[in-house]
């Protein structure tokens, strides 16, 4: 004897990716369809990891690999502004993305400081108070503390010439903060100093101002 089985889903579902509506409209649609508590979840399509990096330096290599590894591990990393346009979704601006992510990754490469976008994003990341994981590629934390020397000097000279004195002060502060956060470094020289990963590194929160 077979009794009728109640279906799992008994109301129409809305796919935010396919209709590309903003969050408010979506909520309005859901609540007008009866029970608003389920069958619609914007959160599952948001970004969770923000990748701050200097595109021309590392896009094709390291960041692409990191992006792929994070996707394989089930994350939704945000790579750059281009994906705002490509993947039709609920975000209008980079600010919304910065607000929605749960963790930041900053990839410091030699040309990093040439981009004011990178530096501005970094300020927002520090301000957000969320966890930041810095990655140092051919750059030392010391270069972040003294950006007018070392590989960042060229970029900073350029910004000075263009009269971005106020911005420079903010950038210096953010770089200094991030230099002190527990991060990762690729030691490409032969005599690498391999330091085993201690679990307490993971729980250390970056010391940032709100």
């Amino acid at each position, binding site marked *: 004897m077979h009794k009728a089985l*109640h279906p*799992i889903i008994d109301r129409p579902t809305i796919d935010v990716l396919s209709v590309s509506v903003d969050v408010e409209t979506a909520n309005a649609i859901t609540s007008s369809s009866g029970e608003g508590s389920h069958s619609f979840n914007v959160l599952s399509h948001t970004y969770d990891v923000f990748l701050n990096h200097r595109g021309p330096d590392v896009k094709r290599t390291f960041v692409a690999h*990191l992006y792929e*590894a994070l996707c394989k*591990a089930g994350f939704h990393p945000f790579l750059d502004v281009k994906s705002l346009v490509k993947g039709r979704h609920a975000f209008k601006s980079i600010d919304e993305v910065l607000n929605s992510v749960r963790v930041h990754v900053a990839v410091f490469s030699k040309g990093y400081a040439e981009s004011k976008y990178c530096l501005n994003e970094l300020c927002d990341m520090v301000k957000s108070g969320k966890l930041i994981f810095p990655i140092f590629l051919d750059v030392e934390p010391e270069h972040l*503390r003294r950006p007018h020397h070392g590989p960042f000097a060229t970029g900073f000279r350029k910004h000075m010439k263009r009269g971005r004195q106020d911005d420079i002060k903010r950038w210096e502060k953010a770089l200094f903060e991030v230099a002190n956060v527990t991060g990762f470094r690729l030691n490409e020289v032969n005599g690498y100093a391999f330091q085993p990963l201690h679990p307490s590194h993971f729980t250390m929160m970056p010391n940032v101002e709100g």
Partner: protein
Amino acid sequence: MVDCKIGCRDEAQLLRKVVRAIQSALPVGLLQQVVQHRIGLQGSVTEVVNYLHEVGILGIVGMGGIGKTTLAKEVYNEYAKQQTFERQSFLHDVRIRSLLSLQQQLVHDLLGEDLKSMEEFHNFFNRILRDQKVLIVIDGIDDIRGFDQLIPSLDKLLMQGSRVIATSRDRNVLNYITSQSSTEESKLYEVQVLDCIHAQQLFNWHAFYSDKASDGFQDLAKEIVDSCNGLPLALEVIGAYLFDKKAPKHEVIWIESAKSLRVDPGAIDHKLQNMFDISYEGLSSPIDKLMFLDIACSMIGQHENPIMSIWESCIICTCPSSKSPHSSLMRLIDKSLVKLDENKNFQMHDILRDMGKGVVKRQSLQVGKRTHLWEPLETNEVLENDEVKSSNLCIS
């Protein structure tokens, strides 16, 4: 100023450390912790979800190490993201847990309440039946006893749109459980081994942290993958073992591994044992091995911190020159022999646990001479006969 930066040898190691750090920084919340590389899963998740449109209770069957739990977790997470059910519960390690602890978790997950005794369970279950649509995953069940007390009125539960998934190596157990429902014919989903392409990808992600094998290792990688028969556990453990062995001098290790995995194609158990032996014997320090056996014999499900304190004091007493147990644990995790779950409790695959216990059993025919005791009867016997030697390191 002191720089606290974690140095990495190569890009693969850097990527692995960054992804792990992000994974442990982001709590999984209501989701189940999944594997580090989700490869070849999407198709089977879709199939299971499609089946669950038609049947109320689904059995997931397959041999050990094929990925039943992983698939069940992925399906669980998929539903959690879609918010299809009002509440969900994932019952782990059903085989080794008491009925009361399973009932307690069900009541906690589905009603948010505490169950004090088994007598109250029926009332609570009736409340679940009254107005909720729930998903219950029963993972690793190997005995039909207790199922009726865990899900007392399966038909009523399914009638209102709830769903039950059970995983097991034993087809008969699943056939019995699914036949308890009169709503539909029973359904079993048999997990398939990975196809060549996905098997190669999974191995490459574990061994190279990339989709592709590094130059010079392609042929050996293919040979090893071919001998793993598409079994995800074998691919993961062998891949993780070879991760830090990619210098030219390590080529011989790859050749040896490929050779010892090349046993006759039917004997999967034999192959898994060889895979385990390669990885376990490859542990460089005796401390790593002992810690692995400690976890396998008696510490699965226990929190990292108190155990770490015990290890620290043991190591200071016996071997003061040795490095901290933290680095040993990290190596065990890197080798995919041990996992820490989202609550920092030790976890280990059943197969690896049983093989670890096998190492201890082979130490001596006399129970009293083994390093670890975990069976209550054996432990009593040894204690009563006053056979405890200094060689007994761990009694649980």
